[in-house]
């Protein structure tokens, strides 16, 4: 140990080493990147992209298919300057035990905003929704559920931490579940998405595709949202899993064996 220190100390004192070592290091890096001067392939000219952008953008026009739920109506609407898909959904045939309050007359609304372009990042989607509906919101808390992704080869699970709150106006009261969904997780916080995005940038040189989800479950006027918690979690899980399967998993090209 002492020997190493002595060697290091004498190396760093030697003025030739002191002056030439940084030059050497910079020269190595410069040699590695020199081809970029000819090809023009600078990393900043081709920022990482979302591989499945058109696939998730299609959600705006089609909405999302949910198992055991039927879509009564689907349309595209503009909220806060962005295109959202709004879907009215109800249980297919009373198959959900917990959902007797939900009916085609009182449907659940599913709002989806897939990212608009490669550079689009989650911003203030929750404020946008509240602003568009002229709501009073209260009882803000968290709700956690797992998202399952089953592919032919493997089943993986991850957890989603969403916002859970009450939104109401003179006409209606909703239990609201909101989160940003991506392939390997989901969270209401833009910071969590940012970290997931950084991870995939470093690993695969790609961006993390995302969809903002807002679920509006009708409840009694000014009712207690805790009574709808299990339905909210079940439905949230269904939406997350469907998004992973239908939007975030690349559709296999037909030419593949």
């Amino acid at each position, binding site marked *: 140990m002492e020997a190493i220190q002595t060697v*290091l100390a004498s190396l760093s004192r030697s003025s030739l080493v002191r002056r030439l070592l940084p*030059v050497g290091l910079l020269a190595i*890096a410069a040699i590695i990147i020199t081809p970029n001067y000819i090809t023009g392939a600078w990393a900043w000219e081709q920022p990482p992209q979302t591989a499945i952008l058109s696939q998730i953008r299609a959600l705006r026009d089609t909405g999302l298919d949910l198992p055991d739920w039927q879509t009564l109506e689907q349309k595209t609407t503009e909220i*806060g300057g962005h295109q959202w898909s709004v879907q009215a959904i109800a249980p297919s045939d009373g198959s959900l035990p917990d959902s007797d309050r939900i009916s085609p007359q009182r449907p659940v609304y599913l709002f989806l905003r897939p990212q608009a372009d490669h550079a689009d990042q989650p911003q203030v989607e929750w404020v946008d929704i509240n602003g568009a509906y002229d709501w009073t919101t209260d009882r803000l808390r968290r709700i956690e559920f797992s998202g399952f992704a089953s592919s032919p080869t493997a089943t993986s699970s991850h957890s989603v931490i969403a916002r859970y709150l009450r939104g109401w106006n003179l006409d209606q009261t909703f239990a609201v579940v909101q989160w940003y969904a991506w392939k390997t997780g989901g969270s209401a916080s833009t910071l969590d998405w*940012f970290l997931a995005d950084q991870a995939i940038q470093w690993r695969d040189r790609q961006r993390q595709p995302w969809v903002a989800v807002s679920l509006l479950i009708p409840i009694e006027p000014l009712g207690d949202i805790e009574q709808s918690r299990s339905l909210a979690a079940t439905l949230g899980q269904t939406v997350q899993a469907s998004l992973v399967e239908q939007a975030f998993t690349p559709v296999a090209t037909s030419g593949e064996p």
Partner: protein
Amino acid sequence: MSLKVTSSKLVHSRRAPEMALWGLLLVLYGPLLLHWYDGWLNKSISLEHEYFSHGVIGLPFAAYLLWQRRDRWPQLPSPSLAGSLSGGLLLIFGLALYLSGVPDAINFSLPIVLTGLCLWFKGRAGLTQMGFPLLLVWLATPTQMPYLIAPYTLPLQRFIAGVAGFILFQIGLDVQVEQIYLFVNDRIVEVAPHCAGLKMLFTSLYVGLMLLIWTGTWKARTKVITFGVGIVLLSVSANILRNTFLTLFHGTGNTQAFDWLHESWGGDLYSAGLLGSLVLLLNAIDRWFPGDPSSSLPSPSQEQEC
């Protein structure tokens, strides 16, 4: 034979490694700086990176400070082992970030490599000597910072929307404020994070820092704090006025005036006016604290006291 002689002469000449160092830095970071400048001047860079467009003037100013300090540099003592080692590690780390190919990491590599070089050659003393130029480079390096702090600016957005709504109400407009939205005649104006004047606030603080360095006022702590608080107040009030006018124009259907202030040279005029008023503010502060000479060097006792 003669080639060998010249090359060994070059290595032993005092200037050669230095020139090679600057040349290599230019090879590595020249194209990156071109990309930054192109993005800042033509607004072709991402929204987050545009926040750092004050680098357009900040980076040349940093280079000027570096040039000014060049004579004192060789006289600094040699660094301690810890100093040069940490510098060397930073240098290697910075270059590794460059080669990673992740755009955000490549941006970070410039200030890290420069800091590493200062530490490697002159240790702590070098860092102190080059503190201001390095700080200006660090603060002009485009990062994702604006994105990360955007969620926390919501209270500021609400405040700006509230005050702008109050002013418009006073001049007799039928205005309603909901969170960060202003409703006038069924038209909506949203005070978005980047509309909350965050970019202008950063630019004002950065230009304020440059003014403090330029005039030497940074040595008087009372003035620095007063100036900093003044910049924040000035920038927030200017932004309230800007949003008030935007809402007024939009709400009354004056699209031409709205576009002029929002996108066209009206916005540039607003920025120039705000930055110009910083100079006036610093002058006023200099007059308020006359016992504290700013442009001349203060005595050590004065520095202690503040």
